[in-house]
């Protein structure tokens, strides 16, 4: 399901402080930039407290982005920490044609029962398990990016792989880099959605 975005898309991330969602949002932005898109990435404004629910945002657009500030209505919602499902209103302020993508061990049908959806799509993925399998760390962000590429078309898989390789090669040994790449690919394949 590869789509080309024609208008500005707004993304809202739900995670917990310390889980790297801001970095993930920046990686998504950097990937979109590679494709010549205009981007924004920013955290929830204010002080961060370890472990507290936290939001981060992206705007991705084929044209220059002029608007600033919190996303009013998201086209894409990404839930990085599954414990937030039902705990914070991840289903609020989502565009009617939007999509919610959650890291969870639950099935799409199970998650659907927790959320209140009004026509939005729902996609689920056990990103934590993929991360553990592929590079042995409980860091669901990279697999989540792979799923985003598949579900939203905000970025293409190929570009994402280039970006992930470049970022991880700067800091990690080849094994970890390969693991992350594999995680992206696996997530891209495994994400289930309707």
């Amino acid at each position: 399901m590869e789509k080309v975005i024609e208008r500005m898309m707004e993304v809202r991330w739900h995670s917990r402080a310390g889980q790297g969602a801001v970095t993930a949002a920046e990686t998504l932005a950097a990937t979109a930039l590679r494709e010549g898109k205009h981007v924004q990435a920013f955290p929830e404004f204010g002080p961060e407290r370890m472990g507290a629910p936290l939001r981060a945002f992206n705007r991705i657009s084929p044209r220059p982005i002029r608007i600033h500030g919190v996303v009013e209505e998201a086209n894409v919602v990404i839930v990085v920490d599954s414990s937030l499902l039902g705990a914070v209103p991840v289903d609020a302020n989502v565009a009617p044609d939007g999509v919610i993508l959650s890291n969870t061990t639950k099935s799409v049908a199970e998650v659907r029962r927790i959320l209140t959806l009004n026509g939005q799509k729902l996609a689920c993925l056990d990103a934590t398990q993929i991360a553990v399998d592929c590079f042995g760390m409980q860091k669901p962000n990279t697999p989540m990016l792979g799923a985003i590429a598949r579900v939203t078309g905000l970025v293409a898989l190929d570009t994402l792989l280039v970006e992930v390789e470049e970022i991880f090669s700067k800091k990690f040994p080849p094994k970890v880099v390969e693991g992350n790449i594999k995680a992206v690919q696996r997530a891209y394949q495994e994400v289930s959605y309707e």
Partner: protein
Amino acid sequence: MTKTQKSKDNLIQNPKSKIQNRKVVILSGNNAVANALRQVDPHVYPGYPITPSTKIMETVAEFIANGKMQCEMVAVESEHSAMSAAVGAAAGGARVASATAANGLAFMWEVLYIASGSHLPIVLAIGNRALSAPINGFADHGESMGSRDAGWIQFYSESVQEAYDNIIQAFRIGEDSRVRLPVMVCLDGFLLTHTSENITMQGDDEVTDFVGPYHAEFSLLDPDKPVSHGLSDPPSYYMEHKMRQQAGMEKAREVIEEVGAEYGKRFGRPYGLVDPYCMDDAETAIIILGSEAGRVKGVVDKMREAGKKVGALRLRTVRPFPDEQIVRQLLGLKAVAIMDRSYAPGAVGAPMFQEVRSALYDYRDSAPPIVNRIYGLGGRELRNADVRNIFAELDALADGDATVPVIQMVGLRGEPAPTWEEMRPLETPIAVAAKRGK
């Protein structure tokens, strides 16, 4: 991940960018300011951390620690000392930059006037944030508006790109021999300081070349030519010195336009004192400054699609105040709202409203009715619907609706705060015009 790694990651080169020696990168406002400072590489950076501009100082410190800047950082014990050391260093012939916000700027207050009165072209980035109390870390123009008469040139940036561009231009403008004044570059706290955007970063050499070397006049550090800085003025000289300061500020108008035009010629992004958007045939317009100008422009686009003749006028500088440009843009309009992100307790309206209204006085017979909409204090979210509402009010005003209030706070919850009209009913522009037989 360490901080060092993090900010390096933010410098991702876009392989698609064809322009040599410059790159499209994703940077937060703070990081963009720090990178502009890295490229200019001032001699001295005296600094003190405060949210939301802390990251500027941290990033500069990191650049220095990694050999990317030669700059001397003076990690002082307060903002008062930061500005004091800035004055000392600048009087010593150094190019100086720093950054602060809110309470930090307030703490510098005394020395701000000394910097400008001494004609020292210090560049200060402000991550705009509300003043206490109640303590609040979010976007608000209160602190920089409060210091608008401190004799500094003031820029308000709309985007991360502009914050970067403004810092680079600030050195040229402040150091110009016709001006020789300190410059504040404001960027909205969080909305710009903490938002990462794709920007075009010029090459290091391009920036060095644009800014040029700095030659201070009257340096303390030439023992063969001793100078006295900061003499006290008897009443018989003080006013002449203030006139000299004023002359620099007046000259700054043309220098800002010159430098902005040259910047545009070299780098493709020209700048002026104001930034009119869809103003040519506009019937109603909003005046605004800072990052929310982008939102207003977006709403203008949408309303234009629906055939509404609306426009936006963004003020890039507040000092010098672009009165002529404003008047030129406003005459002939049917109604105008000035959106202020600050307020002035006990005054009639917020700072920009007061000044725009005063600029229009001589043109009052052809000036549109104007109203003040105060928004976003302490980071209160502004929504597109708020902007649309203001345009709707302007329509009513243009139609002669005498009930459209002069001053209003936007986005108030209503309870428990009284509305402006409850506190003090002011005669509306239409009611006044009716009395004057207009």
